[in-house]
């Protein structure tokens, strides 16, 4: 196997992006569920260096905003009092990576709230929501992709290695799963769950179901690789020496599938992030007040938001670097291993 550096760069970029999302508590100024009922749909605030009197300030500052008199949705700056923007301020308590309790935020302000990317319908900070939303969406993506690959590899390897009626049966079941109308399945599942189940639990249950149901495609790919691998000379030789099935699979055959599995992983993660968005769009995702990229974008279903609140598009932009990273990683991995066939197979999805 020839190693090239290409995929490492992608991996580092992805690690940085995920690191930012994982430590959202530090990078965001506020709790993503905290409402500011005086400032719904506030546009992103402007950062100033020169105040209304023409004086220059060394420290960047902003003006607090309030509703223009007589209007329900137009805001104006209160230019009499500049609020300085501070870095490494203490604010809302949070747990870094879910563990370390802290209260230090990268930026913030004391006298008034600062909205870097504006606010949503309830006056919640859009920037905080995007970063925190990424936690749930990416977790869903990684978790779902992991499950799918686990089942896919297991079933694909079994079918390819043992062949015969087992292969036939498993592949027919795989076809059945591909043909399953999973959307209706999910609706039925959600209606069946008791209301007392916490919504976050319910959501991850749904992700597990999609993950478990999605094994068919990777299973087919893995089966193909295993089919060809088990006929290789070194495998035959090992078998001739009396190696057990488990030893052969572990030592010789599964390592052959690693490139396919890794490429699949890089393709599946964004797919599951998209699945989370679809679910949230349909109201099956993480419920309010928790943010996720899907639920953030769901507000764009309304025409009024679409035409009058441009900053609500921001989550869509936030997703781009992540997807670019994953797809770049997938194609770099593919180039490294020259597995050209996979492109055709995965394009169907």
């Amino acid at each position: 196997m020839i190693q090239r550096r290409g995929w490492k760069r992608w991996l580092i970029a992805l690690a940085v992006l995920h690191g930012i999302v994982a430590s959202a508590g530090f990078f965001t100024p506020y709790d993503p569920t905290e409402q500011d009922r005086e400032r719904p749909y506030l546009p992103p605030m402007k950062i100033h260096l020169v105040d209304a009197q023409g004086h220059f300030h060394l420290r960047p500052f902003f003006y607090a905003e309030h509703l223009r008199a007589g209007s329900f949705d137009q805001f104006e700056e209160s230019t009499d009092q500049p609020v300085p923007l501070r870095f490494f301020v203490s604010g809302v308590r949070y747990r870094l990576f879910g563990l370390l309790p802290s209260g230090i935020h990268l930026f913030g302000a004391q006298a008034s709230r600062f909205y870097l990317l504006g606010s949503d319908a309830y006056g919640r900070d859009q920037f905080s929501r995007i970063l925190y939303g990424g936690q749930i969406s990416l977790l869903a993506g990684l978790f779902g992709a992991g499950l799918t690959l686990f089942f896919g590899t297991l079933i694909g390897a079994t079918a390819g290695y043992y062949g015969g009626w087992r292969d036939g049966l498993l592949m027919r079941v795989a076809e059945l799963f591909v043909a399953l109308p999973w959307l209706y399945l999910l609706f039925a599942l959600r209606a069946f769950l008791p209301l007392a189940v916490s919504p976050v639990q319910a959501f991850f249950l749904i992700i597990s179901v999609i993950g478990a149901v999605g094994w068919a495609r990777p299973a087919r790919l893995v089966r193909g690789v295993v089919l060809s691998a088990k006929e290789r000379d070194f495998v035959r030789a090992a078998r001739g020496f009396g190696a057990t099935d488990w030893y052969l699979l572990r030592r010789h055959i599964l390592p052959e599938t690693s490139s396919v599995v890794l490429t699949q992983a890089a393709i599946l993660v964004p797919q599951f992030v998209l699945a989370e968005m679809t679910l949230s769009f349909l109201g099956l995702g993480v419920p309010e007040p928790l943010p996720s990229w899907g639920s953030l974008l769901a507000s764009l279903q309304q025409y009024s938001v679409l035409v009058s609140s441009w900053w609500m598009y921001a989550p869509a932009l936030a997703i781009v670097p992540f997807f670019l990273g994953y797809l770049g990683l997938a194609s770099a991995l593919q180039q490294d291993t020259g597995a050209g066939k996979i492109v055709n197979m995965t394009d169907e999805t």
Partner: protein
Amino acid sequence: MVRMARFSIFERLLACGLLLASAAVLSKPATGIPRQASPSEELLNLPGELGNRGGRLVVSLRAEPKTLNPLTAADGPSREVILGAMQADLVHINRATQLTEPALAKSWKISPDGLQYTLTLRRGIRFSDGQPLDADDVLFTFRVYLDENLHAPQRDLLIVGGKPITVRKVDAWTVVFQLAKTYGVGERLFDGFAILPRHLLEKPYAEGKLGQTWAISTQANQWAGLGPFRLKEYVPGQRLVLERNPFYWKTDTKGGRLPYLDEIVFLFVPSADAQVLKFQSGETDIISRLGAENFSVLSKQQRGYTMIDAGPGLEYNFLFFNLNELGEKTLAPMARNEKWFRDVKFRQAVSAAIDRSAIVRLVYQSRGAELWGPVTPGNRRWVNASIPRPSHSLERARSLLKEAGFSWANGPNGESLLQDSDGKPVEFSIITSSSNADRTKMATLIQDDLKQLGIHVQVVPLEFRSLLDRVTQTKEYDACILAIASFDADPNSDINVWLSSGGMHFWNPSQTRPVTAWETEIDSLMERQLTAPSYEQRKQLYDRVQEILAEEQPMIFLASPDILVGAKNSIGNFHPAVLEPYVLWNVEQLYFMNNPEKSGR
């Protein structure tokens, strides 16, 4: 592009047809319908601005009407089309004044004991196919409305004191209605009962097919009514076209026969956003049922149209808790939570903690009213202005909860959590309809309000059917947010909600006998107001109902949205009302100003 071209050809054909039709009318004055009233016809002279004749009004409808048969119409779009534009009743409630006025009956008399209503019909009136109207049509109409086999949704309104109303003909223009008991609503009773043409419907009725006749695909010549417009054409999935009823029985102040418009086109546009786009592009002339956000988008870019905020309508949104008698075994978790919900202090505390002004501001962009009772400020005649309207207060909520035996404990992250007297943390879920963004938003605000009290609330948006199923059938829910939009300002229109035996008595529907003392009192008040003879007495009784509801909080009333509408500037006599149909209630008087190319003259 292709579709547009086709439409313009269609329009041209239509224009030719109209010219031919008007030529035919002019050339045959003897058999045609005179534009000015003849003395033999007792027409109704309507006050109001004089308008130009002609033009075609295009309106969006959120769904296809299921039927054109007033007997079986139960869905909103059917009722809007039929009652708004195609049919007429004996006595009509003026949507602007909310008072009754003569319609097909030019006058009525109520006997001193309140049991006998004598109605005198207008003479010389004809259906839209030219056949005359007389007392036999009225008798036929009420016979079929009362026929049990036809299941007319309005049949219940004609059962007074357990007995159906009987109708008797005195002469060709006089009809007597006999009631078993006095009926508080009085002549308002007749509003909404469309008078049907006996000559067209007697045969299907005899054959037992009346329920199926007058489907939406009916041929125009098989249909007749007494409204300002009559059926012209129906294109499935696209539009319903109505044309002027040449025999209509109302005139303007100069004696010119109404309606002014030649045609109304109802386009079927299911999504609210698509309706906004169509109105913005000028494809439709009028828009109603607007959400506050779309209203402000349209208001911002006004081009040739005017947006009007008609004030609070009759819709009331409310939160209610599950107060059913639940089986301990089947629904154990719900039954455990019920212990809190049954405590009136708990309900009052939740009500006190809800920031209603934030709901009005964030959900309705301040185009709405806060509510503490079911009667909105839009219902001027029936609102009880003296029920308490306490403002949002967490302190009051906390002291109410303390009185009820609740206490606070520290949670894992240092927040304080509410727990009941057994030390169980107070948590419940609120279900809302996932298709209604407004109510989901209210639930999210309430969730945040109750978090301040240490109550953990989950918001669960459900598809509307499964929501209703949980509320009315399985009773598997903790709390729910719903709205009711009364069709009339009269308390009777919601009687099903307040009577403990009613199917819409949401918190504990269809009880065989009232469970609580206050529900017993509401039952008796509602029944007394049904038969109370005067408005003042009924008002007094209904005021007491509102007081009990405000005290007991079986429903925590939240807010009422304003009726938001818009119309092109060229439309005259546009006076939206807060009663349905909001913009088409005076459709016979709507006209296009200074619009020579569209005018029929």
